[in-house]
């Protein structure tokens, strides 16, 4: 179940194009997570196309940026790389101010995501002697509660990463279903989409359960089913995920990601298997 997929673009490019369309003009958000180059490329692509008034706060630093009408900037594998956050910067927020402004959206991932979009960044197994201690919450617990909406992107799509119930709730998605966020008076609306190397998923508006939305080109329904441990709703008809358009790929490759970071798993080996095994670590916000 680990055959490699050969396509004319890499899934990070597909992910960047798909996620870009989710971001609306005038919004403010934070690209974050383990491969922050994906959401950062998505946000910059949005700024250069339909959302010129989008504000980016690069995660974990207070640099507020907009790349329109600025000199070209590199896309870096590390969120907090100086070159990454300096690009298009118009303000530098005091650290405490980072948590004093609304986020319309953010992006995050984790070791595990479950049926109700809860994320685990903390540990696999018993917390007192975990099989694997993850990197920790970072700011994920905060932003999952505070941002108006958020997008989950998972680097691997396996039964170990898409589970019925996370071993440990680092970030509350929809908890155990409808009403949980409201009861706890969490601020934001919860996760909107999940994207993996195999598929795009959303959440059923009635049950709040994970729901298959589209299959990435070249991926079969069986492959997704076999690799998903979560109780995912699979509709009768599942379309294909929209491929990046020629214009999007041109902007991504000529303007946003000239170094080809999106096509090379950051600085790691260039190709990965269907489960996206390339990165070991995941940053939380």
């Amino acid at each position: 179940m680990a055959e490699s997929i050969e396509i004319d673009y890499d899934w990070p490019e597909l992910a960047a194009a798909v996620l870009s369309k989710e971001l609306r003009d005038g919004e403010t958000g934070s690209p974050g997570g383990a491969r922050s180059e994906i959401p950062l490329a998505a946000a910059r692509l949005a700024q250069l196309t339909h959302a010129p008034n989008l504000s980016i706060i690069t995660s974990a630093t207070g640099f507020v940026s907009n790349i329109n009408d600025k000199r070209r900037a590199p896309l870096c594998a590390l969120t907090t790389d100086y070159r990454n956050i300096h690009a298009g910067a118009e303000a530098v927020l005091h650290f405490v101010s980072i948590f004093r402004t609304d986020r319309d959206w953010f992006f995050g991932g984790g070791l595990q995501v479950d049926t109700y979009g809860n994320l685990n960044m903390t540990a696999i197994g018993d917390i007192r002697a975990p099989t694997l201690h993850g990197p920790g919450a970072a700011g994920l617990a905060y932003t999952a509660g505070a941002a108006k909406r958020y997008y989950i992107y998972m680097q691997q799509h396996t039964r170990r990463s898409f589970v019925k119930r996370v071993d440990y709730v680092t970030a509350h998605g929809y908890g155990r279903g409808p009403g949980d966020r409201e009861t706890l008076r969490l601020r934001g609306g919860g996760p909107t989409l999940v994207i993996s190397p195999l598929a795009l998923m959303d959440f059923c508006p009635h049950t709040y359960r994970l729901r298959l939305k589209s299959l990435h080109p070249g991926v079969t329904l069986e492959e997704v089913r076999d690799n998903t441990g979560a109780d995912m709703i699979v509709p009768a008809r599942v379309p294909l995920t929209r491929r990046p358009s020629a214009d999007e790929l041109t902007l991504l490759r000529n303007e946003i990601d000239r170094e080809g970071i999106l096509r090379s798993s950051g600085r790691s080996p260039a190709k990965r298997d269907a489960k996206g095994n390339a990165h070991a670590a995941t940053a939380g916000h």
Partner: protein
Amino acid sequence: MGNRASKLRSVADALADVRDGSMIIIGGSLFHNKPMTLVRELVRRRMRGLTVITPCQASIDADLLISAGCVAEVRLPYMGFDYLGLSPGFRKGTSDGTLRAWECDETQVLCALESAAKDLPSGLVKTGVGTDLPRVNPDLKEVQDPITGEAMIAVGAFKPEFALLHAAAGDMYGNLRYPGYSFADLIAAEATRRSGGTVIASVDEVVPLSHTERDPHRTDVSQMLVDFVVDAPFGAHPCSSHGNYQFDEAGLQRYLQAAREDAMDDYVAQFVDQVPTQDAYLDRHVKPSTIVALRRGIHG
């Protein structure tokens, strides 16, 4: 008329009062602004039982201290090497039970530091409501908001005894400047000083007071918060001094490689014990062309 006193100290003098079991906070984030010269001195002295706080992300700073056996407990929201992999010392210590992890989100650490900086016993956050964080960390107390009654979490103030920071530039009185981002270094210094602790900053360059005076708005940490300044050129290496030079990926990989090969004793011997000064460290482990490349990298 007296003269103002210089706060410049050797690394050994600056850290002389750190004791086994001290609570220390390390500034910077991930691969940036980590006071590695100061960290290596703590390893050199084979400190034991430290509690290490990082307000942002930890990487080689805390992991080296853990691997060298200096740490009993960590309070940090993220521990890892981002795209380079997980944190070897941390993974080992949490699995074999030799290291306590105070599970938290960065806004909870921030709350604990803000409370300390305000000289208050605790603060309230929404972060963690509905998660397993309060279940596994009893210091995160589930309470009700005193006005609305809604579910909140109270976090007690941290009282760090030492803050270890790294800035690109500082004058001899302790005014610190960061050309890139200063991350949470200011709140770390505020919390430490207001708790009666000591703030120690290494700097890549000691600059004249006139640099500070030219634009006081660009002083990120005021001298009134800083006790000692350590002159440590490239003192963040292999991490970056944000906006001054880039992190040295190969340098970080050497550490991870040593961990993979179970050769941490060798690493400590070569990178700490055999290089007792920052000059010796640089001469042995950082080539001039690397310095040039790391500085050039900032612009590109």
